[in-house]
């Protein structure tokens, strides 16, 4: 039998019971400037999903293990669950909602559709943002290098060969 000790501390005397104060944060999301008041513990992912209702960016682990939350910050792909929103004050952020232009799918979105590069679709926004970041890096990539570079984005449905084919299409190879 074990017992977990708990100590009664009145809230006022225990700062740990009071959530941290909110700060003003400005994010330029898909070209639109958004000023939010966020607690410092709010991740960029939660800011997008819960505060801006941009739920296209997905949460699959909240621990940087799955890539579902991948967005572009200043054009670079990052796991949005691993950065606090306040750390991105002033940054330009592109999410899956910002890739299509005037109702026309981004070449990667079209290629993912053409190649059936998803099933349930939950990893897909992260895959596409990650691929967009990869293409922006501008390196010529072999198929094995694409696989390696896309390995931070798990697809449990197992669409990997189609994801690689879609990225190759968007690279203009097919």
């Amino acid at each position, binding site marked *: 039998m*074990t017992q977990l000790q708990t100590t009664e501390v009145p809230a006022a005397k225990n700062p740990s019971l009071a959530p941290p104060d909110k700060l003003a944060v400005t994010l330029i999301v898909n070209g639109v400037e958004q000023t939010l008041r966020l607690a410092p*513990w709010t991740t960029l992912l939660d800011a997008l999903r819960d505060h801006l209702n941009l739920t296209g960016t997905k949460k699959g682990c909240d621990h940087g293990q799955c890539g579902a939350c991948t967005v572009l910050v200043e054009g670079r792909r990052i796991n949005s669950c691993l950065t606090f929103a306040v750390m991105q004050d002033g940054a330009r952020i592109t999410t899956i909602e910002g890739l299509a232009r005037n109702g026309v*799918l981004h070449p990667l979105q079209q290629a993912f559709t053409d190649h059936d590069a998803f*099933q*349930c679709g939950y990893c897909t926004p992260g895959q596409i943002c990650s691929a967009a970041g990869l293409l922006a890096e501008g390196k010529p990539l072999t198929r094995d290098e694409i696989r*390696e570079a896309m390995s*931070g984005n798990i697809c449990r449905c197992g669409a990997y060969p189609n994801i690689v084919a879609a990225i190759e299409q968007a690279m203009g190879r097919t």
Partner: protein
Amino acid sequence: MSLSAPTCIGASVSRIDGPAKVTGAAKYAAEYVAPDLAHGYVVTSRIARGRIRRIDVSRARRVAGVIDVLTHDNRPQMAAQDDAYRDDVAPEGAPFRPLYNDRILFSGQPIAVVLAEDPEAARFAATLLGVDYDEEPHVTDFLGQRDAAVAAPKGAFGPPPARGSVETALEAAPVRHDADYYVPAETHNPMELYATTAIWDADGRLTVYDKTQGVQNAHTYLCGVFGLKPEDLRVMSPYMGGGFGSGLRPQYQVVLAVLAAKALRRPARVVLTRAQMFELGYRPAMIQRISLGADADGTLRAIAHDAVTMTSRYEDFYRQETGWSGLLYACANASYAHRLARLDLPTPCDMRAPSAATGVYALECAMDELAVALNMDPIALRLKNYSERDQHSGDPYSSKNLRACYEQGAEAFGWAGRAPEPRAMRDGDELIGWGMATGVWEALQMSIGVRIVLSANGHAEVSCATSDIGTGTYTIMAQVAADMLGLPLQDISIRLGDSTLPRSPVEGGSWIAASVANGIAATADAIRADVLRLAQGLPHAPLAGAGPDDVELAEGCVVSRADPSRRTPIADALRHARLERIEREHLTEFAAPKLAHNTHSAVFAEVRIDEDLGLIRVTRVVSAVAAGRILNAKTARSQIMGGVVWGVGMALHEETLIDPAFGRIMNANIADYHVPVNADIHDIEVIFVDEPDAEINHLGVKGLGEIGIVGVAAAIANAVYHATGTRVRDLPITLDKLRR
């Protein structure tokens, strides 16, 4: 939409839900919002067995933004009888009841849900709960319980009856192979976190957006647990971020979300963490003993298959691992046994191709070992024992083109170039191994309701309460409807994942495609008869005197099959009758099939293994599948490919590790629980062999969700043996096991 020959069915059509998924517009269970939404964070037990003595919520409640903390002490009323908690696919036993009482049945059991104005406050407050337990000794060590395991009940999933005399035949057999094969517990890990959002409407009815493979199963369950009137509850799951079996039964977050919504009289959302999802169910660990006896020419004389699998203490979950062995190959003598080790863990649940992924793994590794002992080619051994009949029932198959799978798979793979001895093929520092295995699954169908609303403007809405868990159900439904109604694909819209729609079973077992496709065909027949009747009401009706079977719907018209120039536009027929639309809802039932009905596959795998490091790469897989008529070449290929990826994980990566001291899962995250990533997957070729089947159902459809994984782990394990000469019989095959 041409005449007679279907043009949409079978075509390589891109998913109709694709645009929603690639733009982020598709909404999943945690993505519905309502004003005043309360956010729930779950607190789980850190002990595996015992009682909660006290939960101190005082500190948590004092966190700004916390609304309430629900525990078994203060939750709203829930049903008292086990029956209320027994969902459509519950195994025998007393189902787990979330927050019901102080009893702890497994580590990671939910014991409280903290409700707050924002998710961060809820998560923070959850760390402040003080919980005292009366801990009792627990047992979670599966291998240690092998001898204490009890016989599985003789229910629907119990072993099939034995035939012949296995012991005598084994003793008399000139060649024998006996071995134990181990499969660890595995966890589904769909990418979407389990979540439920429960929202009240103005009339006090509740809409529950849930991550589930069965909205109506969840609906019935919630009505029972909370004493709700069916019309006061609607369960929705239009998109699901993967299930793989984990969402067949209602999961506990749906109960917690409804509890929260009731307690607060506010909308509420509960999202689980990845770690918490490891306690929702898992593929049970198992030890399987296979004994094979054969003549020197490879003729099988005896098959014995014994399994010990794990279950919880409160429910007996088991599936028929052993029966596949006696089904697949011609053999006069077969026997089976299945025992259960009851542990202080949550109840296991179905996971992709439950029983076959594991049972056929053991059988097909054993067959490979027998081929080695016989000095026979593995395909030749399987052909020698090829069975044209279901070996349990003796019935012939409605269709079985496994032979073509072996032939076409071997051809595409280049099997003829295989050097039979182990370690005979290499490329630089890498040993190369080629292995193969057979796969088998059932071709099931379930009664299903479909509603079609055909509008005078040439649009049709087709609805059914099934789910699309990523399988492509939206798309195949639209394809079948387009052909049956003679409309272009873009004029069909599909509704699913809503408990108010016509009746559907849970999406599992590979039965939805066959069921819903035939359901749409049958409902479209009724629509066709209606349209014909209306068309015949027109003056000088070109189709006067025609019966429903004399016409078809094509090109937006009802058309005589005999003379396609005799036709009436559907729009004219409806408008003449002053109808804007016609609507039919039809429940399609399937008679118990008279013939045996299965899907089959032959899987070929190439591995490359670094001889010094033991690193294993699966560089090529060819999967040749016989599964009746393929409804969509593109999504079908993806289904099989996904199954192959799962097979790679099963063979090389996946293992849920349970610490016997704490009775707790040690790798409850997806960094330590390895699933295949992109770099692990190389070339996968999928072949669908022709398998016309006029018997199984009207459209000849058999289903594909499970067959893709079956046989893959065995083909890889056999390839690893061929590469190295080392036989690893416990999964996953990690490099340390090759180095031993």
